[in-house]
């Protein structure tokens, strides 16, 4: 169901935000997996936060069948998207999309940061390090260099907490 589900999430994201870049869509898929979609995508820290080569490959497949049009780094609905989604019947999807909604208004840079903060927090948590805000801020700064200030990183942590995404 990977292609269909990815197409459905893409369709939802395109209706909520323009432009949608490939980089932002990587983060949308990262959070989709986190909040309940069981995909096989494996995310690692890339140059702009979590990145999955499997997700990139699926996006290429969707482009190949005309479900999405890729123009430079921007994504738009392809001619076949509507037809493809006509076949989709999956009750789990509604819940995933509902939870994704608050994230889709964010800029690509804010999504990058949110996903990066989450990834690093979770890495620490999974290593049983009981991550604290200060330690996560320090590690994000270590990974990101001077791309974002401490305040922005703390704000992202707060957002993740409000969305109940830390430790999810």
């Amino acid at each position, binding site marked *: 169901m990977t292609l269909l589900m990815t197409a459905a999430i893409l369709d939802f994201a395109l209706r909520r935000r323009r432009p949608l870049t490939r*980089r932002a869509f990587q983060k949308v898929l990262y959070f989709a997996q986190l909040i309940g979609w069981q995909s096989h995508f*494996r995310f690692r820290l890339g*140059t702009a936060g979590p990145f999955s080569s*499997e997700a*990139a*490959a699926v996006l*290429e497949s969707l482009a190949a069948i005309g479900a999405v049009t890729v123009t430079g780094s921007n994504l738009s609905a392809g001619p076949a998207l509507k037809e493809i989604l006509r076949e989709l019947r999956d009750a789990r999807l509604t819940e995933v999309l509902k939870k994704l909604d608050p994230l889709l208004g964010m800029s690509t840079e804010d999504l990058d940061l949110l996903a990066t903060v989450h990834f690093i927090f979770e890495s620490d948590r999974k290593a*049983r390090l009981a991550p604290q805000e200060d330690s996560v801020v320090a590690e994000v700064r270590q990974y990101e*260099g001077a791309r974002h200030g401490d305040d922005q990183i703390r704000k992202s942590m707060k957002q993740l907490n409000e969305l109940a995404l830390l430790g999810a």
Partner: protein
Amino acid sequence: MKTRGSIRDPVHGQIDIYPEELEVIESSWFQRLRHIRQLGLVNHVYPGAEHTRFSHCLGVMHLAGKAVGAICGDIGIGHEETEHYVRLARLAGLLHDIGHAPFSHVGEADLFPKGIGHEDVGARIILEELADTIDSCFKPFGISADEVRRALRGLAPDFHFVTEVLTGATDVDKMDYLLRDAYFCGSRSGEFDLTRLLTKVTAAWTEPENRGLRTVVYRYGALHALEEFLLARYWMFNSVYYHSVVRQLEILLARALKEVLQPLGGHYPEELAEYLDWTDEKAWTLIAESKGRWSEHLRKRRPFFQRIYSVAPSSDKSAAVRFASLRMALETKFGDRIVADEPRVSVKFYSDDEEGSRAPVRVETHTGDFVAIRDESAVLKTIPDAAIPYRIFAEPEIGDEAAALAEEHLKGLSR
């Protein structure tokens, strides 16, 4: 103080071992790797592939020290600091796969608790089980267990090149596994000029995609060795790692493992004391005793998942269209009873900066600039973008029906 020892290795000849490293190697956690095969079930197709994560990790340790030593020498890092980085890289290389589950990568996306990977388990083993040994034995070198973890996870900007040597696009993990896997499989496909790469590796500050970090690059003259390395990876993925029968067996094994893990909730135990026992032998024993459907299929080696579609990698866009269209049709009809191999783009490491993947493989030009190899190599431009075969498998019970649907669908596409 104990003197340095050495181990004979079929790939690298002789691997020197420092006494502090021996303390780690002798731990039950590292010894466990003797019982985790490097290539899952590849030995069912290439009978020589009986090697384990144990020898691979020794090889990665060996190469990590050599690569970091070469980089430090080239960029003018002092003796004391070089020793620190070399010993750190060796230790991190030794431990980079310490968290692997039975049969290495088979089914790992589905067999760990949600969101956990072998790297996360490895981090815990380093911090919870090996920290005392590391912190005491490596104190003279200023190395802590947490520094090892940070080096492996890319959370160490001061020595980011060490992370890249261990987990970057041209890391020593790949260098070792290509050579080692080719050797044990009896294949020539994984060979490349290792000496040339280790002679020409260095580090430089590259902007902007690598966040201003000093990253691994290659000196002028490494181009053809890099081409060999990337081609070796391409060939090994096609002929060994994604061999059709290997994939069919691995799909069965992943489902059989899921069955025998059901009493534990369908995944490997979170408690490290229990996880320590999970080796290939333990998993095989449970599969041998299991009454589960997939375990039985695996024991009998029949019936396999049916191969519905298999096309060699191709640069032709129509191949991608046919694969994606067929996959969509089959997934729509049969859902999760269909398994498709993703034609992952990362195999070539033609990094796409706009997507935020990895920093590209960079090589020096004759003018002294470091450029992405994708812009410099005429040879690599000829490799297909989808660097593993386009493959779709179906559960045996729906195999004939799926094959008929596939035939019909592909006929429709040809019209």
